[in-house]
Structures are given as structure tokens and as C-alpha cells.
């Protein structure tokens, strides 16, 4: 049984039909990338999974349970966390407070402290800055914080929306290194990326989304070699 199963979801913004029957699967331990142009519905898909939007049709099954009508905060309790697009850290709170918010749903203080150590080990930059207010971090550090914050919920599935957006090329590599490490330490990942090359390089499997519909699905390597994908998303002419 796949960890996450998205079956034929239709999502609307008012009257705008944004997702027209998206289906996808994520297996335990995988990195799955979702690529596509702007307005294709990548972010909408993630927002639907995370509960911020409700699909009018279709269902989302996580570990055998229908997420159906659950609200975003309830979905977090189920073990899905999301690093939203544009990072959206709490800019007026310190790094530590941001991380505490990540651990909001958890009660076990000892476990939280352990995880904090783990996150600091993963992203040592944050440890140096833990007393600093989030808004004053640089873009790359904010991305780290957003990732760390999501990890503090101890998710089994982590959704990441455009982690490389607006970062210096030199940082993009670092972020993807972190992604791979997080995955290696046991977290399953569903990744939405503009930077298709990187996204497909790290992914086990990939989906291509166009105007609200999945048009292609294959392993990361295969998609990278696919001519259509190369032309449309990798910029190879």
C-alpha cells in the first residue's frame, strides 16, 4: 500500500477549475518530484493535500486513512508536514520560537529536545542564529529555518514547495543536499520544484503537471531524458 494516494482530485478557486483530476502516489521512503510550469497546479496540489484547500471531487488517502474533510492542522497531526512556498517563517519570532512552533503538536519534552539537536546537526547554521529574529535571516537561512520548522513536527511525509526559489545558485545545491539527507534519515518527501533539473536529479520518481492535470509520470532519471520534458522544463533546445 502506498503511503500517500491522491485519487482524481478536482480543486477549484471560486469558479476556476484549478485541478482537473490529479492522481499520484508516494511510496514510503521515496522522494517524488512534481514539476510543471507556472499555474499548472503544483502548489494547488500540495495545498490540497495539506488541507488548505478542499477538493470538490476525489480523495486523498494517507496511510490507509481518508484525509477527506480534515482541516490543515488536523492533517499535521496525521504526520504530514509542509514547507510552504516562499518559506513563510514567522518573521517576528526568533529562530528558537519558530522551531518551538514546529513542535507545537507534540507533548514529549525530551523527544522534542532530541529532535532539536538533530535539526541543529542537520542545519548547523540555525544553531548559531537561534536567538535571532526570523525576519533578519538571509534567504537561504530562512529556507533552512522553514525546513527545520517542518521537521520539528516529526513528519513521516514532508511536502516541500519550491525550496530553491529565489536562492543563489550556490545555495540551491546545499538545499538539495539537505533534502537528500532528510530522506536518507527516513522521511518521505513530495517535492514541487521550478528547478526541474535538480528536482528530477534527486527524485526516485517524478510527475509532470500541466494545466491541472498529470501528463507524464516516470522515474526521475527517465523523465530527465525524456525529450518533451527536456524541451519544456529543462531548457535544452
Amino acid at each position: 500500500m502506498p503511503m500517500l494516494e491522491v485519487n482524481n482530485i478536482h480543486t477549484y478557486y471560486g469558479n476556476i477549475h484549478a485541478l482537473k483530476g490529479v492522481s499520484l502516489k508516494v511510496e514510503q521512503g521515496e522522494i517524488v518530484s512534481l514539476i510543471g510550469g507556472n499555474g499548472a497546479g503544483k502548489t494547488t496540489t500540495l495545498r490540497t493535500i495539506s488541507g488548505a484547500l478542499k477538493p470538490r471531487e476525489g480523495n486523498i488517502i494517507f496511510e490507509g486513512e481518508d484525509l477527506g474533510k480534515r482541516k490543515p492542522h488536523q492533517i499535521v497531526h496525521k504526520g504530514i508536514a509542509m514547507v510552504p512556498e516562499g518559506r513563510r517563517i514567522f518573521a517576528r519570532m526568533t529562530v528558537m520560537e519558530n522551531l518551538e512552533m514546529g513542535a507545537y503538536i507534540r507533548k514529549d519534552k525530551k523527544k522534542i529536545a532530541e529532535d532539536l539537536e538533530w535539526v541543529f546537526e542537520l542545519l548547523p547554521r540555525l544553531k548559531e542564529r537561534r536567538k535571532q529574529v526570523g525576519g533578519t535571516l538571509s534567504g537561504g537561512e530562512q529556507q533552512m529555518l522553514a525546513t527545520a520548522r517542518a521537521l520539528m513536527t516529526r513528519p513521516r511525509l514532508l511536502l516541500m514547495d519550491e525550496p530553491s526559489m529565489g536562492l543563489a545558485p550556490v545555495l540551491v545545491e546545499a538545499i538539495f543536499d539537505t533534502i537528500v539527507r532528510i530522506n536518507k534519515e527516513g522521511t518521505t518527501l513530495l517535492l514541487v520544484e521550478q528547478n526541474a533539473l535538480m528536482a528530477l536529479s534527486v527524485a526516485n520518481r517524478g510527475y509532470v503537471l500541466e494545466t491541472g492535470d498529470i501528463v507524464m509520470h516516470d522515474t526521475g532519471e527517465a523523465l530527465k531524458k525524456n525529450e518533451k520534458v527536456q524541451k519544456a522544463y529543462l531548457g535544452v533546445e
Partner: protein
Amino acid sequence: MFRTWRQRVTFSDIMVWIIGLAIGVVVVWGTISTIQSGKYSAESWFDLIVKGLALGGVYALIAMGYTLVYGILRMINFAHSEVFMSGPVTAVFLANALAASGFLNKQPLLSILAIALLSMLVSMTVAILVERIAYRPLRNAPRLVPLITAIGASFFLQYTFRGFYGSGFQAYPTIDALAGSWKIGTVQLYKTQAVVIMAAIVLMFLLYAIVMWSKLGKAMRAVSEDREAAALMGIDADKIIVFTFALGGAAAGIGGILYILLFPIAHFYMGFIPGLKAFTAAVLGGIGNVPGAFLGSMVLGLIESLGPNLFLDGLGIPNASQLKDALAFIILVFILIFRPSGILGERTAQTKA
């Protein structure tokens, strides 16, 4: 350098400065001539300052409700003045019952705590109900719509409580323990005022601690910064919003009892003026900012208490205290001209663009 200065300044800036300067000059001139005339003694000034601070303390507790709700929903909760009113107009019955049984003067502290608790509970309940009925369904509506339901709710609450308890005035019993004053040198320090100031400071600190250091308080700040991101952390925004209203309501309810210690008459219409003042104070301090609400309230309390005699009397304006509120608002304009986001407000305009 001169060139850039001239480029930056527009006609309207000059006008604004002239207005600001005019207010400043009038205030300073009034102050100087009042002090020179020697009409008031030092004892009088001390007395006014203490009374101003006590009033400011009460405003601060009410202002908390405005500022917390504003922080989280970006809306002015106009019904908050009725939230404030509902506590003391209900608790008066308990107070009178306690007084009739003689318990009030036997155990003043316990009695006041019981009265404050009741007042707090009622205000809290009303705040939560208002949120549930008048605001929650409008979470996604245009910004001004909840403002109108707030006004509607405000009317409804006023006349509901009027219906409950009648339109007369209900006086609180006198508490012997708080009557009288301490003499410090040549000045009198009235016990009530001292108690109110102390209580207000302690309560404000407590509220600040809750907002800054408790888990719920932190969640509250998180929701106020980014509701959706907070939801992604597993924070139930609805619950936190209810908590915010409850906290603001509780502060207003206790504030109501402090207010009643100073002005012991309860009435269904009693919320309007303090509500308006507290709202002004919250804006003055920088709305959405807890220490700002405290500072703004204290400043406003002092202006109201000292202002008419200090600023206007010397100018030869008759019945200066009639213009007390006008003066308070003029000084508000004066402060906002130079600090457009309030005394402690963030400079939001700059970070935008």
C-alpha cells in the same frame, strides 16, 4: 545635502509640520503660563498624576482586548466596549449580595477576587459568543464587514444588558479597606488609586508573559503573523482566535472591576467611553503591540488627567476640562504626525514597497 533635503520635502509636509509645530507651541506655551501662574500646588499635580496613572492602568487592560484581536484578525473589535461593560454590570449583584451579608468588609480581598472572577467570566463568555456569532462566519469577507457586525453586536449587547438589569444605575458598595489615603510627606496617596495602579501593572505583566512566553501565547503570535503557515504547524487557528478573544475578554472583565473601584457606578452604557478611550490608547501605543497598549494607555490617562489644567488653563480657555477629550485627540494627532504607527508601533510603511 541641502538639495536633497529640499527635494524630499513637499508642500504638504510643510503644512503638516506647521500644524504639528503649532500644537506643540500651544501646549508648551500653555504649560509654561499655567506653571507660572502658580494656580495649582505641587500636591494637586501629584494627585492628578496618580489619578491619571490609575485611569491609564484601567485603559491598558481594556486596550489589551483591542490590540490582541487586532493583532490576530487585523480588525477593530468595536464590540469590545460591551465586552468590558458586561462584566461589571453583572458582578454588581454579587458585590451587593456580599456587602449585604457583611462578608465584603470581613474578607475584602477574597470578596474582590470573587467579584473580579465573576466579572472576568461574564466578559470572557460575551467575547467568545461575539466571536462565534458575529465574526467567525465573516473570516473571509472584506475587511470592513466585521466592523459593521461589531457595531451591530455592540448595539445588541448594550440593549440586552439593559433589558436584563434595567436602565438604572447600579452602585457598587463601598469597601472600607480601600477607603482613605496614606499621607506621604505633604501629599495624599489614595488607597484605591494605589491599588488600581499596582493591580494594573501586575496584570499587564501577566498578560505580557502569557503572550510572550506561554505556548498558547506563542501560537497566538504565530497565527497573527501567518495563519496558514501556523495551520501547517498543526495550530488550530480557530481555537487560538477563541483564546485571543477569551484573553482579551478576561482582561476587560478584570479591568472592569478596577474601573469600578475608581468609579463605582455600573450602567449598561458604561462601556462606550472607556472603550473608545482604550481603543485610542491602543492606537496611540501602536496597535497590535502589547507594551504599546500599556504605554499608550498610561500616556492617555496622564493627558486626560493633567492635560486640561496643564495645557489649556494657562491659555485662558474657560472650562478647560470640558475639552479634555478634544485635547486627548489633538495630542493623539500630534504624536501620530511624528510617529505615524504609534509610540511603539512598527514602521510598517517602510518595509512594504
